[in-house]
């Protein structure tokens, strides 16, 4: 049973609870921007390099910056050892992460340049693409890239008759639907939407609302992480006032 008689999930969360999230900014010394996210058991490091010159040069665009993204799992990140060569799944996720980030960035500010986002999953739990997006958006902010807003991502899903927030690994495998969403809070816009599993139209609406709610919670954590890096103790003092 994925939900017990007290409404508790296998990891003891309620149906509307996020897993524990911790974001640390600026963890990769050489990168222009970086972040480390722990999202449940996900441990993901993201480094941003750029804006920088494109190689080969003919890939450059005269009116805007090229955004590239690599989502990659370390061989030890999964239950069974993962072959280090990029899988088709990783290629697809790299694409949807890139597309989920792009609407937040003002790429026309950097014509002829490229920005690289490297998402490395050191340990994978359910929801690694959402966790990766959350860290990547913070890392892009840390790199000082001009942006409209942070992108926040969270999945909702279905376990039997229950629509629940933030599907973990076991729920992903044994549950009935998993729907990752990325969201721009200020613009109220969806930048990632995928679904694996069955949802009635009513369940879908509920799931979408729940996922957006989750994104908003994540948004606060992202802002906090950035504040902490850039204003440090000051902020904490202020908040305690």
């Amino acid at each position, binding site marked *: 049973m994925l939900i017990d008689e007290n409404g508790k999930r296998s990891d003891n969360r309620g149906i509307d609870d996020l897993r524990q999230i911790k974001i640390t900014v600026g963890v990769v010394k050489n990168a222009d921007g970086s972040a480390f996210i722990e999202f449940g058991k996900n441990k993901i490091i993201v480094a941003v390099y750029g804006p920088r010159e494109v190689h080969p040069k*003919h890939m450059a*665009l*005269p*009116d805007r910056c090229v955004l590239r993204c690599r989502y990659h799992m370390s061989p030890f990140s999964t239950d*069974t050892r993962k072959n280090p060569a990029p899988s*088709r*799944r990783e*290629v*697809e996720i*790299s*694409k*949807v992460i890139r*597309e989920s980030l*792009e*609407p937040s960035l003002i790429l026309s500010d950097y014509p002829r340049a490229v920005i690289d986002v490297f998402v490395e999953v050191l340990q994978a739990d359910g929801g690694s693409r959402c966790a990766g997006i959350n860290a990547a958006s913070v890392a892009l902010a840390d790199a000082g890239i001009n942006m409209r807003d942070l992108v926040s991502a969270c999945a909702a899903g279905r376990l039997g008759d229950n629509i629940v927030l933030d599907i973990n690994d076991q729920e992903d495998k044994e549950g009935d639907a998993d*729907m990752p969403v990325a969201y*721009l809070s200020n*613009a*109220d*816009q*969806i*930048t*990632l*939407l*995928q*679904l*694996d*599993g*069955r*949802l*009635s*139209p009513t369940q*879908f*609406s509920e799931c*979408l609302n729940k996922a*957006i709610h989750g994104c908003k919670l994540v948004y606060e954590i992202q802002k906090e992480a950035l504040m902490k890096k850039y204003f440090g103790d000051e902020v904490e003092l202020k908040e305690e006032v």
Partner: protein
Amino acid sequence: MSSSKRSTIIVEQLRKQQMIEALSRGKRLDGRNFESYRDLEIEIGIIDKANGSAKVKLGNTEVLAGVKVETGEPFEGLENKGALIMSAEVLPTASSHVEPGPPDEEAIELSRVVDRGVRESKMLDLDKLALIPGKIVYTIFVDCSIINSDGNLLDATSYAVVAALLTCKLPIFVVENDRVIDTGSIMPPPITTIPVSVTAVRIGDSVLLDPTMEEEACMDARITITTQSEGDLVALQKGYTGPFSVNQILRSVEIARNKGEEIRSRIKGLNGTG
């Protein structure tokens, strides 16, 4: 090169502007309503050597799907299920932009989204396709060749795959002394539902179904919504670099359910049991 690129960009911007203007007056360049599909033709059984096949023409987009049935080991973690393996190649015949070579990001997304619709709808009851659970199962390859590309490859490929699977015939295998024997008899596949994808794109504030390649060149965002026979959603994929509003998504889901039902009856009809 830079000057030629710059002029291309200006041309692109002008074209997009024109298209947005036309759309704002409710018009598509080919005269369709926002919610209508191009002509859809589905032909089945054209590859005798395949266990099932279907050719789909959606306007000028043309896709061929073939099903080959073999036996093999099950996937890890799915020991008691048949194995379903999908691939798609955008042939270099399909347009002047395609380079021959291993599938790129677009082709990988394409086959994975189509795969997801089939898999998550449980169209095929894979539990019925294990021969010796944990050891030998049916391996069902569905391979797609995109012959001509004029937009909305996702839906065209999805219909071709679903039609080929629906109408395929499985060889009946038996296992004797650890050897698989093809009895020479065939059976229909264990079908439970018919997934249908519907793809919409947003250009400016307009949302259109079944985009042409020209419309895709102007799109801001794309969404593919796959429903099963009872009208429930089984797969979603937002694509491309722009966002959608929540309302645009909810409205697209409504449209996709209706349009999906329409296309589903077309596909059901193929089986002579429609």
